[in-house]
């Protein structure tokens, strides 16, 4: 039989397996308004909770008067820290080893901090109740600038930590210091800097921004007093972790807690942590005996639940005069806000920031991160990136450009000169990671060719001459970014959350008629798991994707998993899915052998069933085998066809990519135009190219927003200036550039299907491409580094500081 027969192609196409541009099955309900989100959940007798929030960034609470609020029709209860203390929940543990106030206990530490929780029969009554609560504040001095946090006479923010000279991550140097985390070899790095031909040093800040998912954070808690059972529907990226945390901090045993993440409208890291709203809805349900819903509004989401970044990175590179990098040194001042509520694996207070050597072969490196408290909202989550990876990528990609400028070298050429070569993989980085695979030179060269790099540089030269001659006021920038990510947290040797190893899991059941259900420990917040998980199984065991139902998010039915963030779903759960499928396939092979009366070893898998080697007409389809599994298994074998796999990855995966941005800026107005943006991604094996492109488009749009203006900005009094979408930049389709996507494929050698993860690459690689374009545009006029975000007025300020504005 000819292997390329049309029959074979047809059978393969019918599976819609890996590599197929299968349409997203979840969109059938989403595009018809039939999704089921937390706010769609309506239970009989359900109450609503709403927060009284602090107008002050730092103040002592002298009293809370709830009398008037309790008189508002419909208001049933007002919780304050006093009530929560009764159940030992005024404070909660954070994922970063700190504690956080659930409701203000004695003082408030950031604007819009949760002060009291009003419970009422409907949202309107709750909002009126919030207005009626009277809080007596005494303003305290406010600390906003992280660079002043460790001043000798800086105000004491965390009185609860008084006298504590060490925290979860070692010694504390100051009352506003959280931790210092270091990696690499300090002495060797210093030695390399001492003998370097050329060095650069620059403070590269990644401003504070916010994941701002379309759906805000919300929950519905329902406590059944008779059964002693708690059910919580919530916007959780990691429902199992929430169940464990809920059990640990309450007295409810874990088997009596049911956590359900229904459809989730975007997460981007915002929905990993535990928030006061979740806790208060649970406590309120226990107190009132009724289900309680809490729904955050946009302003609350932007100002109170986890922000991202606020990393101030002083980067230094040592290099030879012909541009070979010798050493990297980075110090980071990390502003965590009022509580350290970062969502990182427990032992990693600065996430995987030690990926900061990027795609380059640094012989030695050292990095140190100091975390500090300020009077700003807590957080520091990974906004569409693996933990602190976008910060690291931004830091190294800006620093390489600064070095190129100092050496008078083309930034693409400098990168090509310093890339880790293909033959160096697996590669041990100076800061402790083992990069699994990569082919950076091929990707970079492909990108340079597609964008027409040399011609662009020629054009730029002409434009620069025109500018200097006064013929134009436009400057042209070409941004180059080559990123390496570290995703797929993670191997149990490196990663845990509160002691739970960061594996993931899958359970597959094949039904007698040959269709299947797969339950996975992750939780899609828009990544199309229902579509792509089925594709992996389809290819692995030969059942059409359309016949496989994927289910996630219910802790009663899904196997334990660590959830979806840090691009971990495909690297970890994707592997668990493939491994579970392979267990099924192995059993199916035994059954097929029995049916065909041959030895297992005489069979080979052929798209959608098993065939006897050398006797092609002897074939059993998976559909037939499934039926047999429930009807006539070999003697001694258990009936049924199902499998569970828990996958502890042996290593992280390291996706990479080459991005180019071409931009024109009018120096007089600061107005920019993105002329082209090209993104080449290598995420290893590609499960669904259409979904990948969608992920890349979305991530690039976020990167564009962040680099060009999206920020959470505070004034000196700690007031948030960008608390709504009027000021917090969310680009519309009109502003969003046209994206040109491309790819190379370098599979991960340790992953069962070679896939690496892609959801976050565009955010990680996109931000430096935009920022480098702006810096490249101004470079010939004398700029070394212009801080993000690059909105119109700041571009104008940059032009002004270069003397370009009369």
């Amino acid at each position, binding site marked *: 039989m000819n292997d390329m027969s049309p029959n074979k192609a047809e059978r393969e196409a019918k599976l819609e397996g890996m590599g197929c541009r299968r349409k997203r099955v979840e969109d059938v309900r989403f595009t018809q308004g039939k999704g089921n989100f937390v706010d769609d959940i309506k239970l009989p007798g359900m109450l609503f909770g709403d927060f009284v929030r602090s107008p002050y960034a730092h103040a002592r609470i002298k009293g809370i008067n709830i009398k008037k609020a309790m008189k508002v029709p419909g208001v049933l209860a007002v919780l304050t820290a006093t009530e929560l203390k009764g159940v030992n929940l005024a404070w909660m543990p954070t994922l970063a080893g700190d504690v956080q106030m659930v409701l203000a206990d004695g003082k408030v530490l950031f604007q819009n901090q949760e002060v009291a929780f009003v419970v009422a029969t409907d949202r309107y009554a709750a909002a009126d109740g919030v*207005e009626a609560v009277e809080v007596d504040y005494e303003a305290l001095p406010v600390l906003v600038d992280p660079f002043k946090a460790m001043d000798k006479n800086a105000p004491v923010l965390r009185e609860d930590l008084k006298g504590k000279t060490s925290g979860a991550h070692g010694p504390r140097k100051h009352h506003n210091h959280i931790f210092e985390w270091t990696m690499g070899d300090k002495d060797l790095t210093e030695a390399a800097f001492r003998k370097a031909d050329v060095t650069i040093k620059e403070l590269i800040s990644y401003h504070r921004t916010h994941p701002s998912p379309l759906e805000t954070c919300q929950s519905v808690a329902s406590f059944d007093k008779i059964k002693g059972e708690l059910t919580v529907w919530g916007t959780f990226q990691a429902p199992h972790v929430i169940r464990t945390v809920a059990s640990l901090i309450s007295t409810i045993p874990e088997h009596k807690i049911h956590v359900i993440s229904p459809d989730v409208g975007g997460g981007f890291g915002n929905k990993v942590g535990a928030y006061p709203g979740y806790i208060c809805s649970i406590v309120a349900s226990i107190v009132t005996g009724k289900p309680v819903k809490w729904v955050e509004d946009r302003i609350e989401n932007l100002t109170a639940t986890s922000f991202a970044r606020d990393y101030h990175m002083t980067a230094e590179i040592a290099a030879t005069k012909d541009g070979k990098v010798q050493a990297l040194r980075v110090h980071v001042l990390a502003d965590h806000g009022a509580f350290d509520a970062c969502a990182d694996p427990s032992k990693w207070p600065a996430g995987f920031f030690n990926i900061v050597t990027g795609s380059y072969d640094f012989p030695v490196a050292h990095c140190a991160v100091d975390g500090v408290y300020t009077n700003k909202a807590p957080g520091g989550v990974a906004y569409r990136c693996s933990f602190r990876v976008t910060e690291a990528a931004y830091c190294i990609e800006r620093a390489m450009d600064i070095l190129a400028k100092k050496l008078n070298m083309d930034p693409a050429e400098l990168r090509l000169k310093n890339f880790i070569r293909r033959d160096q993989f697996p590669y041990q980085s100076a800061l402790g990671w083992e990069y699994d695979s990569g082919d950076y030179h091929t990707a970079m060269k492909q990108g340079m060719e597609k964008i027409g790099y040399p011609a662009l540089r020629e054009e730029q030269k002409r434009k620069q001459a025109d500018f200097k001659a006064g013929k134009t006021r436009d400057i042209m920038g070409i941004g180059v970014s080559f990123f390496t990510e570290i995703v797929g947290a993670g191997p149990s040797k490196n990663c845990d959350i509160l002691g739970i190893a960061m594996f993931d899991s899958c359970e597959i059941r094949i039904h007698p008629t040959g269709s299947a259900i797969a339950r996975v420990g992750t939780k899609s917040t828009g990544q199309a798991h229902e579509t792509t998980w089925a594709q992996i199984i389809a290819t692995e065991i030969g059942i059409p994707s359309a016949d496989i139902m994927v289910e996630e998010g219910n802790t009663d039915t899904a196997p334990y998993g660590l959830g979806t963030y840090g691009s971990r779903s495909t690297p970890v759960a994707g592997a668990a899915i493939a491994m579970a499928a392979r267990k099924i396939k192995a059993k199916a092979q035994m059954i097929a052998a029995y049916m065909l009366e041959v030895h297992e070893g005489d069979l080979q898998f052929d798209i959608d069933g098993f065939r006897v080697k050398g006797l092609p007409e002897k074939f059993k389809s998976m559909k037939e085998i499934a039926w047999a599994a429930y009807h006539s298994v070999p003697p001694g074998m258990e009936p049924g066809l199902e499998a569970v796999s828990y996958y502890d990855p042996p290593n992280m995966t390291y996706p990479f990519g080459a991005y180019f941005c071409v931009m024109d800026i009018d120096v007089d107005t600061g107005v920019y135009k993105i002329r082209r943006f090209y993104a080449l991604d290598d995420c290893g094996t590609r499960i669904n190219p259409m979904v990948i492109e969608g992920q890349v488009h979305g991530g690039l749009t976020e990167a564009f927003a962040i680099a060009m203006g999206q920020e959470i900005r505070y004034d000196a009094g700690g007031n948030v200036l960008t608390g709504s979408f009027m000021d917090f930049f969310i680009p519309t389709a009109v502003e969003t550039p046209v994206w040109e996507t491309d790819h190379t494929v370098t599979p991960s050698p340790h992953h069962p299907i070679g896939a690496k993860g892609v959801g976050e690459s565009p955010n990680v690689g996109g931000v430096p491409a935009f920022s480098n374009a702006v810096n490249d545009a101004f470079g010939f006029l004398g700029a070394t580094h212009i801080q993000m975000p690059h909105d*119109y007025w700041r571009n104008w300020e940059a032009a002004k500081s270069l003397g370009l504005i009369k």
Partner: protein
Amino acid sequence: MIPGTFEYHRPKSVAEAAKLLRKSKDGRVLAGGHSLLPMMKLRMTEPSALIDLGAIAALRGIKKTGTKLVIGAMTTQHELLASALVAKNLPILHETAILIADPQVRYVGTIGGNVANGDPGNDMPAVMMALDATYKIAGPTKARVVKARAFYKGSYETALKAGEIVTAIEIPVPGKHGFAYEKLKRKVGDYATAAAAVLITLKAGKIAACAIALTNLAPTPLLAEAAAAALVGRAPDDAAISAAVAAARKIMDPANDTRGTPAYRKSVGGIYVERAIKRAIARAAG
């Protein structure tokens, strides 16, 4: 983001609306709601009653009477954009309306609400000042008229007295003229970082008449009289334009907000005035 409690009325006539307004302590009229409702949701204003003008047919419509175009206060931005009368007689209103917010807002946001709101970020007030429009006002006692140029007193402060309703806007239709509304904004749906409205008439190679007004460059919209005077009687050359821009910059007093520092907004404000003048001249000549 939930407003306080309020009464809701939907009268059928202006007289009834005025009566309801008078009766309520601190009631507000509701037009398209796209400025008022967001403020109520933030509880920055908590009126005890809303008097919805949506059912008053007399407040809608665009008609030409003699040399004037009369636009009912409840005419939506979308209706302005769809109107052939506006396109023919006052094309600057088209150019401005299309830069306001987005289609969803323009389907319900009204011209009356836009001019009566008193937010320096609203685009129509400056245009109305440039056009020398007159607002027709119904009140508790008797009707009156106020010139757009005398209407704006401060941020959210207008000549409107308690209980008064803008019923229509009357705009003299200019003869052959050039016009432009130039607006810098950060994104679709954003208020102006800086914007300028310019109307110019040319006669024998000289600027015979000119009006310039500015949006969001001070606590109120501004009529840039000195800037216009710098052009009138002169040939439309670079020197004259520079003088006008300098005069316009002099009266700018923009806020310091996330759109930029005052220095930046004055700088780009001047550039947008210049661009609007040049485009208006080109059109006037064409």
